[in-house]
């Protein structure tokens, strides 16, 4: 459905995307995974024809450069943040974009209903919360039932609650057989929405895998923050090291990167060594700052 060949995009002297090729078959859902500056958003904008680029991109067999308008008709797009006429009412916004997509619908309410915005038709865009705005953007993206959905860090500006809601919504959508391409640096988004992950680093594709091998491949997706009394910290460090973990000291205890599916292992090890853990926090990789996990391993 989407074919990206040798995509190159430079801004001035820097290469934001450098020779990336991706094929997305119909019904596939592909995540672009990488930190800030990896080139995720740039690739998406190239697919949408917003940038001039080198290489070729085809959407549904249409060259984006030559028939961008028809290609975009196949795409529903949700940006990181909906920047739009603030004074517009939600229903009006839907109607406007429906017209641009060539739809003559009188059922803005229904379109909004699909994303759980019933009763908000007459609210102005600026009166909507961040999560509602994103759902409005999703409603607009779904107008005309496009075969392709492109999402660009759609949860980045949302709080935890809004994020969960949106991801839930999207995961149900992705089961509908739609082709999806999305950028994310959140593990849970990728794991619940994608069936394939393309890893990007500084504009290059550095790896590609199915979602089932994504989490292990990330290796260290979670940080465990263990609160341990000061006297026991050094012993805890050596014990954990002996069992193959890579703990670091910090003010009140230890930071231990753990594989996502073995988050309780350090507790077992420490319990056996009779070291008391007073408290703990789970810090998800995404909250560590979205740096590429492989870098974390390297350090």
């Amino acid at each position, binding site marked *: 459905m989407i074919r990206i060949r040798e995509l190159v995009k430079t801004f001035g002297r820097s290469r934001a995307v450098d020779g990336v090729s991706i094929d997305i078959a119909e019904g596939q859902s592909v995540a672009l995974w990488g930190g800030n500056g990896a080139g995720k958003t740039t690739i998406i*904008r190239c697919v*949408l*024809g*917003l*940038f*001039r680029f080198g290489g070729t991109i085809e959407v549904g067999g249409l060259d984006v450069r030559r028939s*961008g*308008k*028809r290609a*975009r*008709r*196949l*795409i529903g*797009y949700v*940006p990181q*943040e*909906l*920047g*739009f*006429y603030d*004074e517009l009412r939600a229903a009006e916004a839907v109607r*406007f*974009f*429906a*017209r*641009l*997509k*060539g*739809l*003559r*619908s009188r*059922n803005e309410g*229904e*379109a909004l*209903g*699909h*994303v*759980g915005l*019933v009763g908000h038709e007459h609210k102005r865009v600026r009166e909507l919360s961040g999560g509602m705005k994103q759902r409005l953007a999703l409603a607009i993206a*779904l*107008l*005309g*039932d496009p*075969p392709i959905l492109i999402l660009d860090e759609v949860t980045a500006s949302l709080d935890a609650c809004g994020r969960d*809601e949106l991801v839930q*919504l999207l995961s*149900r*959508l992705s089961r*509908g*057989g*739609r082709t999806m391409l999305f950028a994310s640096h959140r593990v849970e988004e990728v794991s619940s929405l994608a069936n394939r992950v393309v890893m990007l680093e500084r504009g290059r594709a550095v790896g590609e895998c199915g979602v089932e091998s994504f989490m292990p491949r990330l290796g260290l997706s979670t940080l465990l923050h263990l609160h341990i009394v000061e006297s026991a910290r050094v012993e805890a460090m050596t014990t954990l090291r002996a069992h193959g973990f890579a703990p670091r000291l910090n003010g009140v205890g230890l930071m231990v990167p753990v594989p996502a599916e073995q988050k309780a292992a350090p507790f077992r090890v420490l319990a056996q060594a009779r070291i008391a853990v007073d408290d703990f926090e789970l810090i998800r990789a995404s909250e560590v700052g979205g740096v590429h996990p492989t870098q974390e391993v390297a350090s």
Partner: protein
Amino acid sequence: MSSFTIGSGSVMAACGVDRVRPPSAAANIFTIGRRELRDAVRSRWFILYTLAFTGLGLSVSYISAASTGGSGLSGFGRTTAGLINLVLLVVPLMALTAGAGSIASDRERGMLSYLLAQPVTRVEVLIGKYLGLAGSLFACITLGLGLCALIVAWKGEATRPQSLLWLTGLTFVLALGMLSVGMLLSSVARRASGAIGTAIFLWLVFVFATDLVLMAGTLAFKLRIQELFALSLVNPLQVFKMWSLHSAEASLDVLGPAGLYASEEYGPMLHVIFAGCLLAWVVLPLVVAGAVFSRRSPV
């Protein structure tokens, strides 16, 4: 959140899909233009400018009607002259800033990339925005000058309606030209504030600087009348003024020797000359704006 089912079917049913073909360019231009028009007439600047223009226009008409003591004396376009002066001052500022604000501020707010991610072409967006703003300017001008006509009639002054209609039409052409220049600034500028700043600077250049330079040149270099007339054609505001007088009085003799020269040398051809000059200001900046806009990134 409400329950919903989303698959390829339900949205399609809601919106009546035409999957393949996006709407025609004309339809998109109409949609975008209408959106822009509506946004413009509700905006603060439009309301302020319309009030200012109408208010000043009414006072000009009222005063020039009152100063003749209600004698109905001025069948000689004196009110028209006052209105020309007002138009020269207000309309270019309005059109320049409206144009300058349009694309640049959309880009700044992230609206532009979202809009361009829809199945539209850039030319459609540019033309749509242009026509929408042109519509708002048209409304402002006709409201202002129409009310002036009524007050002039009420004061019993015998201004010829043709000259007023000419003035209205020419004012609109002038506004279109200045709007083109504004759009050009907007598509070149990085920030909306920069574009509007430049627009105000250009306004000063058109309204004051060129004429003052022309005056100084006439006095300093003893320009011949042919040269003076030719140079005055450079400034679209002067062209507008001369065209308005020419259409109202059928002669430019009111503008002294240089005007008399123009009338005698070119006669009715003056219409063609003025139209050519003014339309060049409408078309050329818009074409350049289009070229720049379709090359530049919308982000």
